[in-house]
């Protein structure tokens, strides 16, 4: 039994125009000390899924079904009161924009200490000492002085460090980082990613990183889950997904980002079209209107039948959702020479 086990998670929002299937049947496992990267474009359902794990959807406007087993307890079955106790203690979250996720009127230290006092019956003084200790741990210089600063007195990188301190003050066993470095500069991003890896080793937490940046995933995650239109389209170990992807959407992602040390003459091959509307997603495979390979699948299958998540050709837990036959050969022979001619020679 995995530490976190999500089975067939669905988050549907009924609206006057129809049901928005923001997450539609998501399953994955995550062990302690491991990192899962969830990659996808805006509207692919990555943030909605993690909000469901935190129990942040209101019952009045979202229909959440499936199973979220954290350490054997189904988070979707427990009471709101029980969930509130676990939130922040067992599961913690780091948000994308540290400026808007901290209260501008309260001192940084008080906000961090509050997270501690909610779950521990300690004095103000003890909580403050603990906050200073955490600020020190995340690398804020002179923590005993900075603890009394307001968020606007911190730089972007320091605010994100303070957010991490706040998230980790209760020793959570599951940490969800939603685009933790998107708002930061590259050099600060590198600092924060290093810090997160460091802390994960110390705290032995399970970490989920939500990002649209494959580079961040490549550095941080053990496993990758690629989402498209509310569904998982490819899942596997990071190395496997980046070196032997078998789903045309993942190919598209890899070929549309320029790389700092790629050949500058190599072409960017964009994915044509736009991400799908979740209100009326395309029939069959959600990706088929943008897919260059749908002609190769006989019988208009891509448009009519939703492909199942099936094991990839190399096994080893690699799953893909695609009708295309022999994708590994197509990738080696057609996609790779396009996006990284220099890598073909090395193989």
């Amino acid at each position, binding site marked *: 039994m995995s530490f976190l086990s999500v089975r067939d998670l669905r988050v549907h929002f009924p609206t006057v125009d129809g049901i928005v299937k923001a997450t539609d049947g998501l399953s994955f496992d995550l062990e302690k000390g491991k990192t899962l990267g969830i990659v996808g474009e805006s509207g692919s359902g990555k943030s909605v899924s993690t909000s469901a794990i935190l129990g942040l959807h209101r019952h009045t406007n979202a229909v959440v079904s499936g199973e979220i087993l954290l350490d054997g307890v189904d988070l979707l079955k427990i009471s709101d009161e029980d969930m509130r106790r676990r939130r922040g203690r067992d599961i913690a979250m780091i948000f994308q924009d540290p400026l808007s996720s901290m209260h501008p009127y309260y001192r940084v230290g008080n906000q961090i200490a509050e997270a501690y006092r909610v779950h521990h019956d300690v004095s103000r003084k003890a909580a403050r000492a603990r906050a200073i200790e955490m600020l020190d741990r995340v690398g804020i210089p002179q923590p005993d002085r900075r603890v009394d600063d307001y968020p606007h007195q911190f730089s972007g990188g320091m605010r994100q460090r303070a957010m991490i301190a706040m998230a980790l003050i209760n020793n959570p066993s599951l940490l969800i980082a939603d685009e933790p470095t998107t708002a930061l500069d590259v050099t600060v991003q590198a600092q924060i990613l290093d810090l997160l890896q460091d802390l994960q080793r110390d705290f032995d937490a399970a970490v989920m990183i939500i990002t649209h940046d494959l580079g961040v995933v490549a550095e941080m995650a053990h496993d990758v889950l690629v989402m498209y239109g509310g569904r998982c389209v490819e899942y596997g170990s990071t190395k496997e997904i980046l070196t032997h992807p078998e789903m045309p959407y993942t190919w598209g992602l890899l070929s549309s980002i*320029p790389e*700092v040390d790629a050949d500058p003459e190599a072409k960017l*091959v964009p994915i*044509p079209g736009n991400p799908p509307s979740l209100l009326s997603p395309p029939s069959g495979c959600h990706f088929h209107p943008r897919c260059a390979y749908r002609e190769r699948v006989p019988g208009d299958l891509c448009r009519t039948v939703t492909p199942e998540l099936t094991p990839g050709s190399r096994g080893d837990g690699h799953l893909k959702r695609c009708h295309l036959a022999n994708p590994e050969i197509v990738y080696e022979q057609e996609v790779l020479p396009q996006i990284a001619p220099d890598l073909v020679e090395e193989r």
Partner: protein
Amino acid sequence: MSDQQLPTSVGMPGDNPKGRGEDGPTESTQYIETERPHGAVRAHFDAEPILEVRDLRMYFPVRSAGIIRRTIGHVQAVDGISFQLPRGGSLGLVGESGCGKSTTGRMITRLYEPTAGAIEFEGRDIAKTSARGLKPLRREVQMIFQDPYTSLNPRHTVGSIVGAPLAIHNVVPKNKIIPRVQELLEIVGLNPEHYNRYPHEFSGGQRQRIGIARALTLHPKLLVADEPVSALDVSIQAQVINLLQEVQAEFDIAFLFIAHDLAVVRHFCPEVAVMYLGKIVEIADRDSLYNHPNHPYTQALLSAVPDVRQAAIGGRRERIRLEGDVPSPINPPSGCRFRTRCAIAQEICARVEPPLLQIGKRHKVACHFAGELGHHPDRPVTAPLLGVDDTGTPDPGASPSIEVGNDPGYADTWFDLERKTMASA
């Protein structure tokens, strides 16, 4: 018509820039095409400069609180930068937030009036031109903004947004505006029939295309693109980058491409300048800058970019950690502005500001210890040139041996770091 049915084919390779839009999207030729107009990749180094910036400065006053708002200091957002941009070429400006790259773009489009310095556009200094005198300039220099959600007026139709420059500058008769707008929409890969729609009816990538159409309306010669793709989804970014390269090739537009994404800049620009705290620390052609960076900041910046390919072939690039944050531009460090975070800084760095020294055919760097990673010299290479000793104190015996100016272009001779003498091609 659903979103996916819009003719998005323009971002695709091999598309003929004229007469597109009539066919449906998603041709399966996408991955198989071999030819495509590839705008800026080719370098335009020999072309005469269309833009020359000399010693440009922008200081924003900082005022005290209270009734009498005395000026108590200045944010030195841009502090003496010089560069050239060839006709039809592209220069990338990269750096972290607060380094002054957007301010530079806004001065060149004259949204700001520079505190000092010259901006020569086609040989004419536009740094101090009056508002009235700027009107003809607006036809030549246009801007593409970062955020496609806030840079389009939500209460105007696409037709009036894209057509506004035509009406303001009286270039075509009123009844010809709509046909011209439709032509432009087609060029940027939008359905020309959609000129009556409002911005909220378009997705982010499509809105950015509207912004590009607006910038192209008057056939500008210079486009300042301030983070044109950073607000877009990954799969859309590539479409917009390809579109920009196509319009550049077709209309021979020079680009000042401002971005923080080093990989995107490398893809788009044959020449790149790295800025730090209002100064250019290194400027070079693409190959020199990315493969042989000589400034410790450029090296750190490049090493910090997370890399898919490195991880894919196993292994991770060694990261140079930069400690701390960028210092305040109100009170920047003395001497070299990067010294507070620099691993190789010595005494001289606090005393003397390093000049932007040309060290190759098209490569300038502002560092006393310029050298490739791991090969930084032990003694400051600039000391003898500046007439100071190794600690930076003026040396009465030595006199400055060469003129180290702030010239926007490149000289035919340069200082060879290996041999410590002047060299030429």
